[in-house]
């Protein structure tokens, strides 16, 4: 798995990418707050935010198809929560409001994560005095996430190559065995990482 398959476009060169991380993160947060404050009776404000997002997306040179695909991938989650609106009378208007609001908010976070490398966000968090232990955990976790995902894929492929058929009753235990083995490997890897960290003079 390519380690950058999630924020593949975070290292493009564009005016948006070159903006300081703090500016981008601050703007995203302000936009989200503004979205939360927009009264339902003034939908034109939503259109304004949408226009702004389209403009930023255009300036960032990220392929629009990629952004749209990611948006569609995440939209069902928001739709699921918004469907709760149907449980009350007059649910349709409420539903549309919630969907519009959450889709725009999703666009904001998506643009932020696709124009800013995760490491840059971590540096910002560090500068904002987030405790060092938490930043270290985030950085290490992000670094080894894809390594471990590959490891899980190998374990599953190995298991599939050993079994002729999937017996229904056994399935859950077999999958759990893969997970158990995966944790064993993760803990062994953490030992090696610790050794490597010590060899480079790391102290907690």
């Amino acid at each position, binding site marked *: 798995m390519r380690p950058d398959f999630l924020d593949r476009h975070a290292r493009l060169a564009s005016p948006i990418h070159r903006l300081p991380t703090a500016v981008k993160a601050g703007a995203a*947060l302000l936009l*989200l707050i503004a979205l*939360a404050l927009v009264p339902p009776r003034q939908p034109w404000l939503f259109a304004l935010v949408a226009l702004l997002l389209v403009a930023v997306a255009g300036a960032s040179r990220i392929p629009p198809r990629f952004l749209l695909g*990611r948006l569609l991938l995440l939209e069902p*989650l*928001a739709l699921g*929560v*918004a469907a*709760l*609106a149907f*449980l*009350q009378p007059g649910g349709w208007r409420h539903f549309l409001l*919630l969907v519009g*609001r*959450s*889709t725009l*908010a*999703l666009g*904001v*976070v998506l643009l932020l*994560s696709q124009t800013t490398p*995760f490491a840059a966000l971590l540096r910002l968090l560090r500068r904002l005095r987030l405790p060092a*232990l*938490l930043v*270290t*955990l*985030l950085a*290490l*976790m*992000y670094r*080894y*996430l894809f*390594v*471990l995902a590959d*490891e*899980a894929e190998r374990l*599953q492929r190995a298991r599939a190559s050993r079994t002729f058929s999937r017996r229904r009753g056994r*399935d*859950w*235990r077999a*999958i*759990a065995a*893969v*997970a*158990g*083995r*995966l*944790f*064993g490997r*993760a*803990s062994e*890897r*953490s*030992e090696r*990482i*610790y050794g490597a960290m*010590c060899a480079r003079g*790391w*102290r*907690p």
Partner: protein
Amino acid sequence: MHIPDGFLDLPTATGAAVLAAGGVAVALRETRRRLEPRQVPLMALTAAFVFVAQMLNFPVAAGTSGHLIGAALATALVGPAAAVLVLTTVVVVQCLVFADGGLLALGANLLNMALLAPVAAWAAGLPLRRTLPGLAGRLAGATFGGWVAVVLAAAACAGELALAGAAPWRTVAPAMIGVHLLIGAGEGVITALVLAAIARARPELVTAAGAGSARRFLRTGVLVALALALFAAPFASSLPDGLEAVAERLGFAALEQPAALPAPAPDYALPGLASPLAATAAAGVLGALGMLGVALLLGRALARPREAGSA
């Protein structure tokens, strides 16, 4: 259970964020107090493991499948305080990298999934770990803890949505909690199976972990209880209203057409069961009892050494 952006209003989002920050700060201090340096990469890798384990699909029926959520498993592996940090890492990466769960809603999501869930899993498993010795107790505790964690996190999620006005508590709570009574059962069983698999492959990883930091951690427990009280307080007053409204409506119907309708089934007239909230509460109690039984049986069965040839 990730709340996306756009569903919480500012007061709810900010309140939850403040509570989450406080809880994470307590967990940080608690973890640092007894942290061995080699545990830092282990915690990070545990977080990555929880993340990846969530992608393993457990087939249920008719093409649907469930997956691990991981709060109880992380708690069983690294202990409650470190589990809060592990799950915080997971939820933050899910939000910032995958855009799964909102940025403004991050505080609420942390509160539900990274604080309430592991603390609840740890607390709910405690009596079982005390009564059943050894691995069986740990497995039973993790099973029951997994169920409680999911149900409680779902209830908190529903509470935040209701508090923010996204949906009324009377309808969102039965919907959310009802579904998660079942999802929680799956989570409990998967947690036990994975923990048993780890114990089989690497026994030292299960027996060594999670000891010690119990008593001081109660402080986080108190904080979480405070959070719950804060979120539950508005509903404590609205709950009787809901019951009354339903009773009134039922009474009304009965008064309007006393003769035209055949007498309703006697239990239908009981407002206690007519209200979806009360029904959910009843289902929750029954579910807890059932899950306790499942946890005890599963713990005993999985802790037994497996006979040769069954692997």
